[in-house]
């Protein structure tokens, strides 16, 4: 097996009494797309910043491309592309200038940066906006520009912190397509997200994090197989009746989960379960059979939903 590009053992971050990251172990392999899935405040961004060498760890081991981000910050950061959760584009510079000036931080000469900026704008589908003000870009365009900027140094690893939060569905798909191409080109992606669909789309392998700890690890398919059933039946009886009906649903599926607005019945055969429900004389207002997702895995592991 090849050397991991990132390896963490017992990685820990404390802020006073608060433990943000509570001793986690993971490895990221070259060319892999690795995800950290968890709700807000789970410690994902903190972990990202420790990898990115902008936050010192309190304990444990961390190596990025064999280097210690706590001691060799500039060397580690030279290898990385960083797409932060909050955009920090320079609004006093034009779109193309944002890429060029960022490239200067890596000591890259203008002879390299000129053509590179044009290639990156093409990749980000922003050629027409090269001379535009950053202010005039849509949210999706700003994100793509931030990604383009992060690629200016041809990073081995691209860190993406909540890359599509706040974007509309179409903009998200455009972005995922771009990231998928990068992965195909061999760039290692590390993605944090609290969207299970994003994790399923982008990640080969992921860790599910909650309260600074790893709850599970594996590929999306593996995690679903291990922690959920093949299918889920979602039934709604109205918010008043959900809790009363749940006793009558006993035994229909492998297990039930009651949410405020609906009941989830976990089963390997959704249609059969639905028939059984109506055979028992229960008539939900709406019903839906779907495949299990990472959301179900998270719910199973933590008893909570990902997005509150």
């Amino acid at each position, binding site marked *: 097996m090849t050397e991991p590009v990132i390896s963490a053992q017992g990685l820990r971050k404390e802020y006073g009494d608060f433990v943000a990251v509570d001793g986690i172990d993971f490895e990221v392999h070259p060319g892999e797309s690795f995800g950290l899935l968890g709700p807000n405040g789970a410690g994902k961004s903190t972990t990202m910043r420790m990898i*990115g060498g*902008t*936050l*010192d760890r309190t304990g444990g081991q961390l190596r990025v491309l064999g280097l210690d981000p706590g001691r060799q*910050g*500039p*060397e580690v*950061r*030279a*290898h*990385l592309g*960083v797409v*932060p959760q*909050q*955009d*920090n*584009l*320079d*609004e*006093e*510079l034009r779109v193309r*200038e944002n890429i060029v*000036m*960022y490239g*200067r*931080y*890596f*000591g*890259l000469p203008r002879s*390299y940066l000129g053509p*590179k900026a044009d*290639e*990156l704008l*093409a*990749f980000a589908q922003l*050629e027409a906006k090269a001379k535009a003000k950053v202010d005039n870009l849509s949210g999706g365009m700003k994100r793509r520009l931030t990604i383009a*900027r992060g*690629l200016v*140094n*041809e990073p*081995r690893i691209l860190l993406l912190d909540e890359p599509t939060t706040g974007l509309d569905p179409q903009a998200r798909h455009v972005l995922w397509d771009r990231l998928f*191409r*990068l992965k*195909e*080109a*061999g*760039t290692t992606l590390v993605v944090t997200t609290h969207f299970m669909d994003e994790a399923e789309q982008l990640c080969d392998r992921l860790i599910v994090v909650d309260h600074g700890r790893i709850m599970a690890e594996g590929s999306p398919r593996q995690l679903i197989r291990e922690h959920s059933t093949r299918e889920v039946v979602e039934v709604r009886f109205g918010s008043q009746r959900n809790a009363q009906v749940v006793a009558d649903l006993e035994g229909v599926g492998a297990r039930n989960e009651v949410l405020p607005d609906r009941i989830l019945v976990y089963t390997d055969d959704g249609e059969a379960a639905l028939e059984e429900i109506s055979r028992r004389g229960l008539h939900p207002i709406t019903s839906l059979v779907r495949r299990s997702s990472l959301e179900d895995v998270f719910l199973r592991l933590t008893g909570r939903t990902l997005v509150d």
Partner: protein
Amino acid sequence: MDADTNALAYSGRAPGHGVMAARARARGVWYYAETVLRGMRAYFWPILLYSVGQPLIYMVALGIGLGTLVQQGAGSVDGVDYLTFVAPALLVSTVVMSVTAEMTYPVMAGFKWQRLYHAPAASPLEPGQVALGHLVAVVIRFVLQSLVFWLVMLAFGAAPSGWAQSLLVVPVGVLTATAFGAPLQAYAATLRDEGFQFAFIQRFVVMPMFLFAGTFFPLSVLPTYLHWIGWISPVWHGTELARLASYGAPVSPLMLAVHLGFLLALTVGGVLAGVRVYTRRLHS
């Protein structure tokens, strides 16, 4: 058109990542200063207008207008006509007022509003280089601004010691700007709210320095119990030096050392504090 993503990820044209890190370690301050200067370009005309217009207005209003009155009353001040007396002080004061603007709200924008500092902080640059780079860019601006002011002084015949000696008002102006600007930058970097303190600084620190630190009248005219305002004010120390440069005002070698030492100490202290605060704030 679609780009070749493989070439995008690895073109073979980029230097190695180790080279990038080494260059950033060696020249990172300049790299960040370049970005800040680029950003100022968006305000090039307002800055130029301000740099030329402000000295002109002050020279005409205070030097000629007020100067005529002073001339009729006191005759001369410090052995020279009023315009000559007040011009070097105005150069120092206007640069200090400009540095106040540059080292307050833009610092807040860097950490909080636009999070501009967080971009270089994720690159090979170190936070200390970001702090210094911002200061260096501002210094470069003030070299130009002071040069313009000096040319206006020459044009008004308000620098009798000749151009070679009076040109020293430019480094003096810049040094005074850093003596006030560097500590202010460090202080602004500690603020986590919306910067309400800046208006207070403007009114109760910068304005008193402008009015009571020997700008419009020698400090000796004030009652002794108000002299401390001058003594602790970079503006007074800078003004004394600028007067020495522009018309050979009497400054003893001891006081020359005191003025220079005071301004240098504030600059160095401010820079060291700034590097610390930026590091704490961007890397924690």
